[in-house]
C-alpha cells in the first residue's frame, strides 16, 4: 500500500464525484489539470445502502448503483460540454466513498475532492470524505471549494 506516483505508467487524476456542487467543481478542475498534464481523469462515485439501524430498508427497490451511475454521468456531462473533450473514465464503486477514493488514488498523480459533499453540514470545515482523503491518500490531494463560484484559477487560459 505504498504506491507512489508512477510516472512510467499511465498518469491518472482521480476525482470523487457525488453530485454536489463542490464535487462538480472538483471534476472540472481535474479535467483542466488533466489537459495540462496529459493525464486521464478517473471520476469515481461510491455508494452505500443508507444505514437503517436494524429497521427494514424503507426504500427497497431503489437501485443505488444505477442511481450513482446516473449522478456521475450527469456530472460528467455538465463538465464535459463546457470544456474540450478530455479523457474521462468513470467508475461506480460500492462502499465507503472515502475509502474507495483512497484506494482508487493509489499510484495516481492526484486525488481531487470537493471541500464538502452531500451529507455534511454546510458549516463543516471539510467534509468527512475530504478529511479522510487528506489524511490517508498516498498521492497529493487537491481540495476544491465551490463557494465564491467562478473563483477558478485566474490565468488558466493562458
Amino acid at each position: 500500500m505504498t504506491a507512489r506516483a508512477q510516472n512510467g505508467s499511465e498518469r491518472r487524476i482521480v476525482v470523487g464525484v457525488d453530485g454536489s456542487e463542490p464535487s462538480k467543481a472538483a471534476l472540472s478542475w481535474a479535467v483542466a489539470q488533466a489537459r495540462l498534464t496529459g493525464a486521464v481523469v478517473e471520476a469515481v462515485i461510491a455508494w452505500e445502502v443508507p444505514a437503517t439501524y436494524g429497521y427494514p430498508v424503507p426504500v427497497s427497490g431503489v437501485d443505488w448503483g444505477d442511481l450513482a451511475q446516473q449522478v456521475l454521468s450527469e456530472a460528467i456531462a455538465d463538465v464535459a460540454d463546457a470544456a474540450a473533450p478530455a479523457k474521462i473514465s468513470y467508475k461506480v464503486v460500492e462502499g465507503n466513498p472515502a475509502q474507495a477514493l483512497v484506494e482508487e488514488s493509489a499510484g495516481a498523480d492526484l486525488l481531487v475532492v470537493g471541500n464538502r459533499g452531500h451529507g455534511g453540514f454546510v458549516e463543516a470545515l471539510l467534509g468527512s470524505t475530504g478529511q479522510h482523503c487528506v489524511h490517508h491518500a498516498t498521492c497529493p490531494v487537491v481540495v476544491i471549494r465551490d463557494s465564491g463560484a467562478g473563483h477558478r484559477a485566474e490565468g488558466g487560459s493562458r
Partner: protein
Amino acid sequence: MGPQVSAGRILVGVDGSRASAAALRWAAAEAQIRGMRLHVVHALDQHAAAPAHYAPPGAGQDAAGHAMEVSALKALVREAVSPDGWPAVQVEVDAGLPVRVLLARAPGAAMLVLGSTRSVGFADAPAGKPRAPLGPVARDCLRAAPCPVVIVAEPSVQPEAEPARVG
C-alpha cells in the same frame, strides 16, 4: 480585490519540513506546467520560534536569524526548481502566524500548496480509524482559503529498502 496577476500565481507554504519540501517541488512543477508564478512563503512564527514560552518576546527574532531563514529558504527553492530553472519565483519571509501569513496571500492565487506530515504506516490505517488530525495550518487553510488547496504528503521512506526502523 486588488489587481490580479494575469499569468496567475501558485502559492506554497514552506516551513522547512520534508513534507513542505515535497510541497515545494510539486508546486514548482505545477507552476511550470501552468506557466504561473511560484510564490514561496515562509512564516516566521514568533511563538513557535521563541526558545521558550517564558523567554522575552522577540528572543531569537533578530535580523541575523531572519536573514538565515531567507537564505535557507532560497537554497530549498533552488533545489526544488533548479533543473529547468523556472524563473518566475518569488520568495517571501514574513513574521506572523503561518495561517494568517498564508491566507493573506491566498486571494488571487490559483492554488495554495502545503505539505502534510504523516506518521509511519499512515497509509495502511484502516478507514474510519481516527488518526492524528491534520496540522492546524493545513486545517485552517482548508477551511478558509478561497482557492483550491493542495495537500502534498511527506515522501515515504522507501519501505522496500528499509522494512522497519525498529531494532
